[in-house]
């Protein structure tokens, strides 16, 4: 792994172009690109040497659609080989149209069907908190359309009741929910006891500041960062 090249943000578009096939979610892939880059570049305490370290931060990709951005960022951060990108979607490839934790070491959960990841992230955050007074952080990436799923709202209500200050939901808001959220996505979380921030989803400085924000002094509230994406 030590010989793997590292890539810059500017290289990600080229890495994505290496993946071919019938991927149907191009727009979705690009909507997550900046958030994923900022997370892996400057927020998550995980790198190629700590993929299996119990003290690493976890990123649970609940919104598994459009994983090309994830794969490109993992290659850029040397957690996958660039050659794997060329196999995208092929029968024997590790890289499906949704990420698979049993095929990609750096992927925390297999996903695709919407509405699963936040509850899994709660279980992970709860378990980590049970074991340590300074547990690793657990991040969960969701989409605004995914919030249509009722299961997400079971999880939103539960997380704050459990006092999971080591949990951060990151919601990509590209207004893909058919019926929308009249009270605002942040408001949906806040009413359940989350600490919410809404930022421009392409602004790396704003993303980093919001994603690094550590909540209240007690750190008992889960946090949500709503990342608004225009395109």
């Amino acid at each position, binding site marked *: 792994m030590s010989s793997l090249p590292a890539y810059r943000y500017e290289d990600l578009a080229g890495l994505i172009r290496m993946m071919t096939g019938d991927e149907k979610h191009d727009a979705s892939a690009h909507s997550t690109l900046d958030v994923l880059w900022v997370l892996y570049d400057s927020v998550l305490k995980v790198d190629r040497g700590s993929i299996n370290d119990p003290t690493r931060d976890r990123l649970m990709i609940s919104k598994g659609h459009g994983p090309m951005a994830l794969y490109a960022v993992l290659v850029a951060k040397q957690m996958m080989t660039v050659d794997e990108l060329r196999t995208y979607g092929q029968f024997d490839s590790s890289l499906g149209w949704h990420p698979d*934790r*049993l095929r990609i070491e750096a992927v*925390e*959960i*297999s*996903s*695709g*069907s919407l*509405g*699963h*990841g*936040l*509850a*899994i*992230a*709660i*279980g*992970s*955050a*709860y*378990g*980590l908190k*049970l*074991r340590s007074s300074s547990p690793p952080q657990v991040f969960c990436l969701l989409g605004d359309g995914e919030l249509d799923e*009722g*299961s997400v709202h*079971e*999880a939103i*209500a*539960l997380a704050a*009741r*459990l006092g999971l200050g080591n949990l951060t939901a990151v919601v990509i808001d590209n207004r893909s929910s058919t019926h929308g959220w009249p009270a605002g996505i942040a408001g949906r979380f806040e009413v359940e006891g989350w600490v919410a921030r809404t930022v421009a989803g392409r602004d790396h400085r704003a993303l980093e500041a919001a994603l690094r924000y550590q909540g209240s002094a007690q750190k008992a509230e889960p946090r949500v960062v709503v990342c608004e994406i225009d395109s």
Partner: protein
Amino acid sequence: MQTMREAFFDGVVEWMAADEKAMVVLADISAAGLREASRNFPGRVLNVGIREQAAIGVAAGLSLEGFHPLVHTYVPFLIERPFEMIKDDLFHQGLVATLVSIGASYDEPGYGRTHQCPEDVALLDTLGPSTILVPGHADEVVPLLQRAVSSDTVGYLRLSIAMNRRPIRNTTATMTRVVIGKNGVVIAVGPMLDAVLDATQGMDLTVLYATTVRPFDAATLREVAGPTPKVVIVEPYLAGTSSPVVERALSDLPHRILALGVSHPDLHRYGSYADHDLAQGLDPAGIASAICAFL
């Protein structure tokens, strides 16, 4: 006499005391019954409220972190409502967890169809290898619970109010040879044993008793089945659930199978457990009649 549910509560306390990775996830049901476990092991009994989809997801997250989660609630809300979570969050992720249900096929018929789930074992069969355990007596619950939580697959323990008159002391995964006969083999699953024994008196049939239905004990069946087996399997859930595994066990032999179980899951009727056994043909007379016709 202790119920299976009460025995389960005792078994959970025992398990949690012995294994610091043991975690229980509840969705309100049985929260009172597991109060001792909750008190003895702070933080390790997690009641998520009436959120069964979250219960399975949370269990998956705990399993990812090295805990052994046990999720327990009423059977339709454990297996049917969060079925896709069981599929995607547990089986597809390659995670281990134990599911424990109460309610069975029609334990409390007054509640109607929404609280009945004879389909549970058949549904789990669609997801991949698992360990499915069906006790027939309260005294069999704790050993089976211990086996469920020791399994390297998703485990399912199916509790019921229906019990046989006496427990069978067999802590292994093999079927118990209760009666040996010459005219065929009847497999009684869990609480069906008494009805099967009553039904088969004087028929000179071998009666096997199964509490471990997955993995299915093909070896014992083959040992007693003879060269041209006639096999009846009587299950307390959807009729035919285990026909494929019996079929596979005997695939190289000329054989006949009769699968008895719940055949009419949506009767729109209330009454008692015995009323429903009668309606499904799972009373001794109904079983005897079906076996006589088959033989």
